[in-house]
């Protein structure tokens, strides 16, 4: 990736990210399929960086998916968001820290709406009061969890056990970064590095010793696009969008894909399996796919966390070739063992994409 122009863009798009005392909120969908990512984030912040992170069991979905698929009205989502802000202040926190890119987009969009249309904010105050008896204040700082890891990337790199380097060749791993659409495409100045070439993941990769590679369809949607996927008849569009990205990045031979959005993670991981079954085509090396990792998994991996504790066996595109490439010490026999050493059900072996069970 050529750096000169991007460095100029990046200097124009730097945002304020809180230093401590985070009010963390989960992603609805990700905690069902990559639950280890959220726990890895909390572990990194609390145990590695010694930060204060609070998670409130009463917080709810932001209803973003419902809003974007037009089943949740704008008034409703504003009130739900206001309630989450109210809960944060009640617990004595002011730095809101969502781990979902769509939520981050929703929170940003609603704050912008309130800024431009104060009457909407007043309406929301009334609704929240009537519905829950609560009052709310806007957060002092709103940062996505990938923003926070970006901010502390050098501290993490300083404590890292591994680098994103090929153990055999000594060369930096080639990494494709994929940013969720709702992170900065709607409000470029709310993302680190803007919307064209966001720095938020590129910065992480470079700090950990990897090399970010650019490819033509870098900005293309991952394939989640809510209406493409939730309507089953439209899923051909969803998988086509992912396929377009894989076809475009494959000639550059990326070692893995890093994403900051739960949906992107899921679809780029799962659709590689589906495409292999449909078209007998794989995009990685030696019949494997291209591993797709969340930013927390990448940070946890370089810090030397156990990949199976981070839930990397939940990926449908096998991550083991990447672990071997870096030289991560792990126990293959524990891939499908539970927290107490019990045997977990083994996944079915796919027919056309390699996966080590």
């Amino acid at each position, binding site marked *: 990736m050529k750096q000169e122009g991007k460095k100029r863009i990046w200097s124009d798009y730097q945002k304020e990210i809180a230093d401590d005392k985070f009010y963390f909120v989960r992603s609805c969908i990700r905690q069902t399929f990559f639950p280890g990512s959220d726990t890895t984030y909390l572990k990194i912040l609390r145990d590695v960086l010694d930060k204060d992170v609070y998670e409130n069991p009463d917080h709810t979905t932001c209803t973003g998916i419902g809003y974007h698929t037009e089943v949740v009205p704008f008034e409703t989502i504003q009130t739900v968001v206001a309630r989450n802000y109210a809960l944060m202040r009640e617990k004595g926190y002011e730095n809101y820290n969502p781990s979902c890119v769509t939520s981050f987009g929703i929170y940003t969009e609603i704050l912008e709406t309130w800024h431009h249309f104060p009457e909407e904010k007043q309406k929301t105050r009334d609704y929240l009061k009537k519905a829950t008896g609560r009052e709310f204040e806007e957060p002092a700082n709103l940062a996505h969890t990938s923003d926070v890891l970006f901010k502390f990337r050098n501290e993490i790199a300083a404590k890292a056990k591994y680098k994103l380097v090929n153990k055999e060749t000594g060369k930096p791993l080639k990494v494709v970064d994929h940013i969720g659409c709702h992170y900065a495409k709607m409000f470029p100045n709310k993302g680190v590095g803007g919307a064209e070439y966001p720095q938020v993941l590129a910065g992480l990769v470079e700090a950990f010793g990897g090399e970010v590679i650019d490819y033509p369809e870098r900005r293309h949607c991952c394939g989640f696009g809510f209406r493409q996927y939730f309507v089953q*008849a*439209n*899923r051909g*569009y969803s*998988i086509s969008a992912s396929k377009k990205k894989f*076809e475009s990045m494959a000639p550059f031979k990326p070692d893995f894909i890093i994403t900051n959005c739960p949906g992107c993670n899921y679809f780029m991981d799962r659709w590689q399996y*589906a495409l292999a*079954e*449909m078209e007998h085509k794989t995009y990685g090396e030696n019949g494997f796919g291209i591993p797709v990792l969340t930013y927390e998994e990448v940070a946890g991996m370089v810090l030397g966390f156990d990949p199976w504790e981070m839930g990397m066996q939940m990926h449908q595109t096998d991550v083991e070739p990447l672990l071997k490439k870096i030289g991560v010490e792990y126990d293959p026999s524990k891939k499908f063992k539970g927290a107490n050493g019990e045997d977990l059900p083994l996944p079915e072996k796919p*027919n056309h994409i390699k996966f080590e069970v």
Partner: protein
Amino acid sequence: MVDFGFAPIEINIHDLDKADLRLSAWISERDETFKLCIACGSCTATCTAGKFTKFSFREMCHSIRRGEISEAIAESEKCMLCGKCTLACPRNVNTRNIVKLVRKANQNFKV
């Protein structure tokens, strides 16, 4: 072969690094307003020929930018040169002249 109930559609990728951009450069040299087009479609919305045929000035511009020279030239033949689109264009692109240039290019490019 697993049947998931849906399948990928044909991938339509235009690699601009490999596109034949001679026509695009040739037109831009002769009429700089070509570069101002933002593909808003006002020209196509107001087009009389487009009402009765499949002609679209906007698509023709896309073809030029993608290096699809023969498609662009074929498209230019459908225009009646009435010039209404020139009045509708919010960017002051000399649309009528662009069509004439594409037709002229046909003699130069021998597509």
